[in-house]
């Protein structure tokens, strides 16, 4: 993966190439050993390129290859890995290169403006809503339903920004306190600035291979054991925002495929999507890794620390590493890859984890995408 940064000099193509090349180099492979390429990237407006799928093709290693772009909003970075997995697991290809890229600094004055037209043009756009409104309304409902305090939410920012200090690609690693978070400006109550991930430029990539090919390439392959995704209603006001049903459905799809019956016992490490501090907790509950309303308590008890019982977002996440939308989801898959191989350096969680889950979220805040990876070959 590339460094995640505020303003990249590189073009989107160059960012994609840097990440794709790094993935190939780490697998000691050349582009001609890749059968098909997959790009994941969020709205065209961010990079300022219509049809950015074809624009980015060369950077993704798509030259004269079966190549496609997939897109499920913020959920893209994890979904794209599932999309690549389809191609290999179906037997169509031996290898696939999955690249996710986003260059948000292109979008001026702020990428937020690109989102106005995701709202209904008659019932919502005239109110000039901002994406932050949804998150604020959702966080408030989550907090009120379970009597969660702002301090409990703020702990996510503290943990993730601290974890990111060990990540060479991180944009916003920092040692901060709950007090700092609560003292930061309120963007839309109850969302404070330090509870929000930054806008970023960056790319991340992975190489997927069929079992027999993977065994030839490396002595310790990381296996995709299950994939899942789910879309809830686009009438977002009609969802009960206190709980992400769509994440639960996506997670169970992936867990069933992976043979996981008790996620809380069988998942050793989790990388849930954390563009906002409360979302990590919200998503952990959807992922069945905490009972409803209990994630804040487990966090306070240290369960989700890097050396806790269930390390959560050891990468530093979107809050710490950064949030170039699609690339951020793939960064989470990269983190699980390094953690399961014991190659995460300063970020390495203890205890030789054998199975991890990565999750992303997006579209009109109603898509959940989940990938389960592990050190043992799946039976399906």
């Amino acid at each position, binding site marked *: 993966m590339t460094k995640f940064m505020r303003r990249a000099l590189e073009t989107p193509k160059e960012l994609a190439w840097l990440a794709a090349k790094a993935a190939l180099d780490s697998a000691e492979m050349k582009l001609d050993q890749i059968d098909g390429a997959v790009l994941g990237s969020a709205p065209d407006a961010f990079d300022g390129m219509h049809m950015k799928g074809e624009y980015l093709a060369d950077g993704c290693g798509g*030259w004269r290859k079966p190549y496609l772009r997939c897109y499920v909003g913020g959920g893209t970075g994890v979904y794209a890995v599932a999309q690549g997995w389809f191609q290999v697991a179906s037997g169509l290809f031996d290898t696939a290169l999955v690249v996710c890229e986003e260059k948000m600094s292109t*979008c001026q004055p702020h*990428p937020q403006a690109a989102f106005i037209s995701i709202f209904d043009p008659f019932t919502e756009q005239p109110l000039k809503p901002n994406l932050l409104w949804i998150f604020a309304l959702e966080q408030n409902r989550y907090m009120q339903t379970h009597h969660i305090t702002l301090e409990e939410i703020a702990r996510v920012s503290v943990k993730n920004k601290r974890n990111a200090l060990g990540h060479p690609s991180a944009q916003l690693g920092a040692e901060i306190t709950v007090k700092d978070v609560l003292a930061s400006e309120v963007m839309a109550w109850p969302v404070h600035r330090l509870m929000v991930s930054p806008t970023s430029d960056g790319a991340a990539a992975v190489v997927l291979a069929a079992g027999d090919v993977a065994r030839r390439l490396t002595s310790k392959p990381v296996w995709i054991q299950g994939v899942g995704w789910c879309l809830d209603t686009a009438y977002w006001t009609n969802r009960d925002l206190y709980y992400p049903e769509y994440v639960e459905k996506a997670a169970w799809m992936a867990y069933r495929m992976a043979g996981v019956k008790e996620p809380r016992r069988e998942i050793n490490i989790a990388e849930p999507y954390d563009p906002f501090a409360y979302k990590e907790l919200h998503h952990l509950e959807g992922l069945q890794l905490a009972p409803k309303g209990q994630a804040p308590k487990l966090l306070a008890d240290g369960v989700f620390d890097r050396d806790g019982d269930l390390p959560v977002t050891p990468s530093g996440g979107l809050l710490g590493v950064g949030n170039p939308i699609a690339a951020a989801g793939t960064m989470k898959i990269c983190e699980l890859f390094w953690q399961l191989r014991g190659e995460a350096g300063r970020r390495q969680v203890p205890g030789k984890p054998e199975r991890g889950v990565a999750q992303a979220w997006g579209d009109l805040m109603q898509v959940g995408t989940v990938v389960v990876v592990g050190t043992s070959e799946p039976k399906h």
Partner: protein
Amino acid sequence: MAGTQLRHIAKWRGEIPIESLYTAGIGGQRFFKALKEKGKLVGTRCRRCHQVFVPSRQFCERCFVELTEEVRAQPDGVIKSFSYAYIDHNGGRLKHPVASALVQLEGATTVMLHRLLEVKDLSRVSIGSRVKAVIKPKGKRIGSILDIEGFRLVE
């Protein structure tokens, strides 16, 4: 519904209020810097497949290797195809029709799009015609593809 009059139904005008700020990138800035500062056209050469990309690029899409060898292309080139446009992008009639061409510069293996200058009569142009880049004077160059005014036919 067929026959529905737009003026009888509710309607709302909206926009996506953004602008895009592009960078030429690691590869592209070589080209634009050389063009602005020296009025020269530079590319990069792939040591593996020997493609010479003009304008310069950072990597070869075929070999996936970094392109570090800078090559200078000549302002002279050859027309690979051409056209004459009478309509603008909104479908309006252009007051001054625009002649465009695909040009391969001497020293490049790639082909670029640009304008053909002073072409009033397409019968003078053919595929294979030789052209030369008209580069703006230094004081007017800003590091844009328009620092090349266009290509003029070489008689």
